[in-house]
Each structure stands twice: as C-alpha cells, then as structure tokens.
C-alpha cells in the first residue's frame, strides 16, 4: 500500500512542480542567451567606431618596471594613432605561462623576451624580423644581439642586458684593512678576502665573507659545445668550479653551503647583503633597488675575479613578435619603438642598453653609488648568457640539482658531474617531444 500512496502523493504535486521548473529553466536559459547576445552585440557595435589596430604587449609583472612600461606604451599610442597597444603584466612563471598561451593560440602580439628565446624560437613561435633590422657594424653589442638569433636569423631584438657583478660592502673591506677589489683582482685574492671578512660569534657565523656563486665561465666551464650538440659537463672546468665553491663553503667556511642558506626561497642573497650579513655577493646589478635599499653602509661594485677566463653571468632583455599575430606590420613598428636607442636610454635604470653609444650615455647619467660604474660597460664585453638552447630549462634543472647535491656535501663532484652529463646527453638526444 505504501508505495501507491507515495506515488499518489507525488503525482498530486508533480504537475505544478514540473510546470514551475520548466518555466524557471526556460526563463534562465532565455535570459542567459539574451545576455550573451547583448554583450556580443555591444562589443561588435562598438568596434567599428574604433578603427585602431589592437596589439597586446606582454611582460612579466613586477611593480618596479610596470609604470615605466605603461609610460612607453602611452607614448607609442600617442605617436601611432592608428594603433592601440594594451600592456599585459604576467605574474609568476612568465615563460611557462607564455608557452601555455602559445599552446592555447592566445599568445600576445609582442612580448618581452630574455633567456627563454630559444625555447620559443625552436618551436616556431616567433616572427622572423631579420629583414626589418639593418644593423650598422659595431653599433651594438653583438653578444647581446646574438642572443636573439636562431639558426642565423633575428627572431627578436634586445633592449639591453642585465648581468651579475660583484657587489661589496666598502665599510667592511676598510674595517678589515683589505684593498678594495679592482680589475686585476684574482680568484685567490677574492678567496682570501672572503675568509678575512667572515665573522663568527659563539660558533655561529654572524657575517659571511661571500654569498653567491661565481660564474662557471670564469673557470672555463660551459654547458654545451659551441654548436650546442654536445654536453660539456663531465670536464675538469666544472670540477674546478665545484672544488672552488666547496673550498669556500667547507674548508674556509666563508660562504654558506647549500645547507646553511638562510631560507633561500624567502630571503635572497641581496636581502642578506642589505642586512650586513654578507660582505660580498655576486648578483644581478639592479641600480634602482640597490640604491633604495642600502643606506646603512657604503657599497660599490667590482668585476668578477679573474680566473681562467672573464665571464659575467648575464641575461638579456628584449622583445619578440608572435608568428601568428594578425597585425605583423604594426607589431614590427612597436618592436622597433621598444628597442630604439632612445627607448633603451629611458630604460637605463633597469638594464645596460644593447646600443653601445646609448650604453655609454646611460652609464654617464647614473649617479653614484656605486662609484665604479665603468664595471658595467666592461662587463658588457664579457657577458656569459645561458646557451640559447630549446631545452635550456631541462638542462638547467639537471645541473641545478647536481650543484645542490655537490655543494651540500652530499655527493662527490666526480660522480655528480658524470650523472649530470648522462642526463644532459639524454635530454640532448631526445630530438622529439
């Protein structure tokens, strides 16, 4: 009996309930449809009145440079009334997000590009701009421009370079009675100074002599052969690099080992330096931030100590155009504006221009500290950027893991490098995804 009752009870209510539901559902669907049509119509109706070509310009989001970039974009829009550029700040993993945008066919028209150049170029992501740039010989730093070449063709163009320099606390050097680092400074001089500048209190290090990592290029170490087909990892140069840093960390105790690094992902080496806990750091020179952050002591910059070679860890800053942009002519116009010498000069607080004469002017414009601004121009001649290899992220990750293991004292350099070289060969040998 109960089931019947139940059914009767349901059937009594069902008709009005169903009708209401049907009306409600139909109403919601219709309203949604109408809203969609209205939104689409307003957008389409608005567009014809605006004849400007819309371009998107992407760069990694950072509060520091965004304002300057917005100024550049506004200036370009003023000078080019037929084009409307919209600046897009991408926070976090910039290259990764750009690659995902390319994969989703929603890439920006023009984008900021640094060491990720080859990852994109090898995938055919960028427009070939070789024919749009006639470069008078000697006017540009060739090593910087070369970073934007892929298979001999220009796939983008640099604004300039940023690189590591030795940044030191001048007060601490003078207090320790040490000569200030100069151009003839050797690795041994540096090691001695780091040892003397390390201060211990109650068994704990209060002040590190050095915090960072000297460029492997100083030891002659390279990731790959010049044609980028072979690994160059399991070699004496890398062994020297690791041995030198192991000596600093474990023999002299003048540099924090990987185990000692105080919350590397929270407080970077520059912050350690600002707090007076490190006498020297080898880090990216950032004129504006450093000037704003250091007020308690005198500081200056020096070239990287002289080893088998001169090399400054560096990156480049430039722009590239998406190959599938619907507006290539306007995008090229924007690219040319962004990398023009006068724009490079406006960006002088953030980079050293790729145009030689502009670089000289920018460095002249800078006010001290630091005193030794010539280091900036000298470093431009010894830049050692990461190889522009399509699989650079994978290679960097493999090498980074090896360095962490070895410099933590958990693995001997020889087997570490052997294993890393094997991984490099495996990554390089994989010709297809």
């Amino acid at each position, binding site marked *: 009996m109960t089931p019947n009752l139940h059914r009767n009870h349901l059937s009594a209510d069902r008709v009005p309930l169903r009708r209401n539901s049907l009306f409600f559902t139909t109403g919601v669907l219709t309203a949604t449809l109408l809203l969609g049509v209205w939104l689409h119509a307003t957008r389409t109706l608005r567009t014809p009145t605006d004849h400007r070509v819309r371009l998107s310009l992407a760069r990694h989001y950072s509060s520091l440079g965004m304002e300057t970039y917005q100024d550049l974009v506004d200036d370009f829009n003023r000078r080019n009334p037929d084009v409307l550029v919209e600046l897009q700040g991408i926070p976090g993993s910039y290259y990764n997000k750009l*690659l995902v945008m390319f994969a989703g066919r929603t890439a920006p028209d023009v984008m900021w590009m640094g060491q990720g150049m080859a990852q994109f170029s090898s995938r055919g992501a960028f427009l070939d701009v070789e024919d749009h740039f006639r470069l008078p010989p000697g006017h540009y730093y060739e090593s910087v421009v070369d970073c934007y070449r892929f298979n001999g063709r220009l796939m983008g163009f640099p604004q300039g370079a940023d690189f590591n320099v030795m940044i030191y606390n001048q007060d601490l050097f003078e207090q320790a009675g040490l000569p200030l680092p100069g151009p003839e400074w050797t690795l041994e001089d540096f090691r001695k100074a780091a040892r003397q500048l390390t201060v211990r209190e109650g068994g704990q290090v209060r002040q590190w002599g050095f915090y960072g990592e000297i460029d492997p290029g100083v030891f002659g170490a390279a990731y790959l052969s010049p044609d980028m087909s072979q690994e160059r990892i399991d070699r004496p140069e890398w062994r020297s690099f690791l041995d030198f840093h192991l000596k600093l960390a474990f023999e002299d105790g003048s540099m924090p080992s990987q185990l000692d690094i105080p919350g590397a992902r929270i407080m970077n080496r520059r912050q350690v330096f600002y707090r007076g806990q490190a006498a020297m750091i080898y880090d990216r020179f950032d004129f504006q931030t450093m000037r704003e952050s250091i007020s308690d002591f005198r500081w200056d910059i020096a070239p990287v100590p002289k080893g088998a070679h001169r090399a400054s860890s560096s990156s480049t800053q430039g722009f590239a155009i998406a190959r599938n942009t619907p507006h290539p002519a306007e995008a090229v116009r924007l690219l040319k504006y962004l990398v023009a010498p006068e724009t490079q000069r406006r960006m002088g607080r953030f980079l050293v221009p790729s145009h030689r004469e502009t670089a000289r002017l920018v460095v002249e414009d800078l006010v001290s500290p630091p005193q030794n601004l010539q280091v900036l121009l000298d470093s431009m001649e010894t830049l050692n950027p990461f190889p522009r290899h399509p699989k650079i992220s994978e290679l960097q990750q493999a090498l980074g893991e090896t360095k962490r293991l070895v410099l933590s004292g958990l693995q001997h350099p020889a087997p570490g490098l052997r294993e890393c070289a094997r991984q490099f060969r495996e990554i390089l040998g994989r010709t297809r995804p």
Partner: protein
Amino acid sequence: MRSRVLGMAALFLLPNLLGFLAFTLVPVVASLALSFCRWDPVAQPISGIEPAGFHNYLDLLGFHSRTDPGGDTSWAPNTPRFWEALYNTFFMMLAIPFNMAASLLLAVLLNRKIRGMAIFRSAFFLPSITSGVGTMLLWMWMFNKDMGSINQMLAWVGIQGPAWLQSYFWAKPALMLMASWASIGGVNMILYLAGLQQIPRELHEAAALDGAGRWRQLRHVTVPMLLPVTFFIFIISIISGLEGGFDAPYVMTGGSFGTTTVSLYLYRQGFEYFRMGYASAVAWVLFLIVFLLTMINWRLAEKRVEY
C-alpha cells in the same frame, strides 16, 4: 508520459553532462590516446601529433644496461627522475597512518559534551579551510633555519635545528609535518566525529559494565565500529597521497632537495617541457598505481571490514 519525464530529466542533466563530457571524459580519453603519441602543443598543431607506440611507456618504465668507468655493467632506469619522484611520493605517504591515528584521537577528544566544544572543533578544522599557499608561505618562515620559530623553539632546549627546506634529509619530513598539521583536524576528523556519533551508546555502556576502561573501550568498541570510516579515509588518503603533493613542493622547495612528487614531475613534463605524450603516459601509470592499490585495499578490507 514516461518519455516526457525522461526528456525533462535529460534537460536538467544536460548542463552537467556537457561539463562532464567537455572537461572530464574527452580529456581523459584524449590523454590515453596522447600517451601513445608525441606532441608539443606549442610547436605542432593538433594535426601534427605523431604516433609513438609504447615509446613513452618504455621511456618511463624501461631499463637499460650501463657500463661504469670501471667496466662494471649494471641496469639503470631510462628515467631515474620518475622513479625518484615515485619514491618521494611514497615516502611522503608514510605520514598517512600517523595522520589517521591523530585524527581519530582528536575526534574522540572532541566528541564530548563540554561547554565551548564548537569553538575547539572549529579551531582544529580551521587549517583545512585556510588558503593553501598562504599557510605554506607561513610555514616557510617557520622552517627558516635562522629566523624560523621551529628552530628558535628547538634552540631553547639546546638543539640546533636543521635547514629544514634546504636539506635532502629534512625537506620531505618538513613537508610531511606541514601536511599533517593541515589534515589532522580536517575532513578526516569530521568523518571520524560523524562515525563516533553513529556508535550506539549501549555498546560503550555494556563494555563499561563488563569492566572495560576507556582504553579498552576505544580498542575493542570504538575502533572496530569505526572500521568502515577508517577504511574509507584510508582509501581516500592513499588516492590523494598519490595524486596530490603538488602545491607544497612547488611553492616551498620548487621540487628541490628530493621533494619532487609524481604530480609535480608530471606537471613539469607537460607544462614546462611540453612533452604532452610523455606526461600523459605518466598520468596513466599513476592511475594504474592508484587503481592497483585501491583494489588491494578493497580485497583486504573485504575480509576485515563489516558494515
């Protein structure tokens, strides 16, 4: 009449069904197909997908012989990184039994009628509804070698704390500790609380009359009566342990110091190196592991768990 009812049902189900098709079924089938292909979505359009047979699986699970400089030959995995990631994932899952036991104990403690109990329950549940990345950043500070509160507390008792997140020995336990903090008072505790409230009071009364103390009541009444809940939590924890473990290593260590889990490895292969076929193969191998473990659990539970 029947067809009209079916039509109505279909209409109501349609939005969900479309979502399921577009965002679950099609991607799952596509990933299975992709696992037998090579595809870099940035470089190649969909039409450029190349068949690769079992190449991705061989790359992932295969071994090759290797000759050392000394002349000794040994077998080595084609992709040691995957096996390391798998080891790291299983290692971090060692916290599961501890977390479950702690959740049970907490639930027992919170299953009392005391004034203000709702406040305690909310307080313990709070970590599981707090923003994940926010708490991770907070824990990064707490784990800091020099300034972190954990090492400062250890220093009070004369112990020099390690560099928790920069050490191959401590990074995994540190992440496990943080995960335990978030999960002990979380959903597991709520499930145990619900389970505890389902146990007939008479069983405890009868046990007490027979002279059983609190510990024996817990052991012989509460725990057996909670076996179905425990089994459910265990299965879910195993699944989420294998599939999870992405956000904490990604945010706190970047996968360094032996903290790359399978899910982080999969993400890197797919969305950093754009090896979509290989990443799909990793996903399917992970699915098979989850499936096998769940089957084993189910078989074992059939003999022990009564509903």
